[in-house]
């Protein structure tokens, strides 16, 4: 039996850098998610999470972020590519939870100033996702040459991204529904 509760799919903006273009990508994806029937979303900006840096892991779990991850049925992670990798702060934030992620879907949006659209950061995030119990989908969104995709005010200049985001979100929502059914109804034993 399918639950009547709406799906909750927050978007995590995975960088705190000044001038980050990933903010525009995260806002766009959050807006498109908000148009999906039966889906609630929220944009979580890791720059605004009050996590200490003198410890790590679940020892620094932050109540509001933990509650949102627990409520979530799936996640979207928007990550820029810095020297082929993800930001240290994103890993710090992700590591603060574990049980909240188990058997939930995740889709990754890569952002880069160059031509590869964050493909390398996505590849680098996949083993991390697997280890913390998230289930990756096979659609990504790649924002290549992001400075040409958005105007300075965040306006989308290339409408072709809407169709790609739509395909990405459809796959993510299907996986979110399927995994919710599994978490709630299908026993391991």
């Amino acid at each position, binding site marked *: 039996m399918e*639950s009547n*509760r709406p799906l909750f799919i927050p978007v995590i903006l995975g960088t705190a850098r000044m001038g980050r273009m990933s903010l525009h990508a995260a806002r766009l994806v959050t807006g498109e998610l908000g148009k999906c029937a039966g889906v609630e979303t929220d944009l979580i900006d890791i720059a605004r999470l009050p996590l200490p840096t003198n410890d790590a892991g679940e020892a620094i779990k932050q109540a509001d972020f933990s509650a949102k991850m*627990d*409520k979530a*049925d799936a996640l979207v992670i928007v990550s820029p590519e810095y020297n082929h990798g993800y930001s240290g702060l994103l890993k710090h934030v992700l590591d603060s939870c*574990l*049980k*909240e992620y*188990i*058997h939930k879907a995740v889709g990754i949006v890569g952002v880069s100033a160059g031509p590869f659209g964050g493909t390398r950061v996505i590849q680098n995030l996949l083993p991390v996702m697997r280890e913390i*119990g998230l289930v990756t989908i096979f659609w990504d969104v790649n924002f290549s040459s992001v400075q040409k995709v958005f105007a300075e005010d965040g306006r989308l200049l290339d409408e072709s991204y809407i169709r790609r985001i739509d395909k990405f979100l459809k796959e993510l929502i299907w996986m979110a529904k399927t995994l*919710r059914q*599994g*978490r*709630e*109804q*299908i*026993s*391991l*034993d």
Partner: protein
Amino acid sequence: MATVANTDKMICPSCRVEMNHHCDKLIYTTDTQDAGPTDTNLGGIIEEFHTCPKCGGGASRHA
């Protein structure tokens, strides 16, 4: 020492209904507080993950 599976159903603290046990995860830790339930055959702690079928809330416990 191998651990014995905990067969008691977890109860959702919000809905008071039985939760669904859907995942076991092997966790390695250096925390000596967690040394007790270590499964020596597997080399770590088995953590069980449960979800409430009513509200969707999650919970975990050592196996």
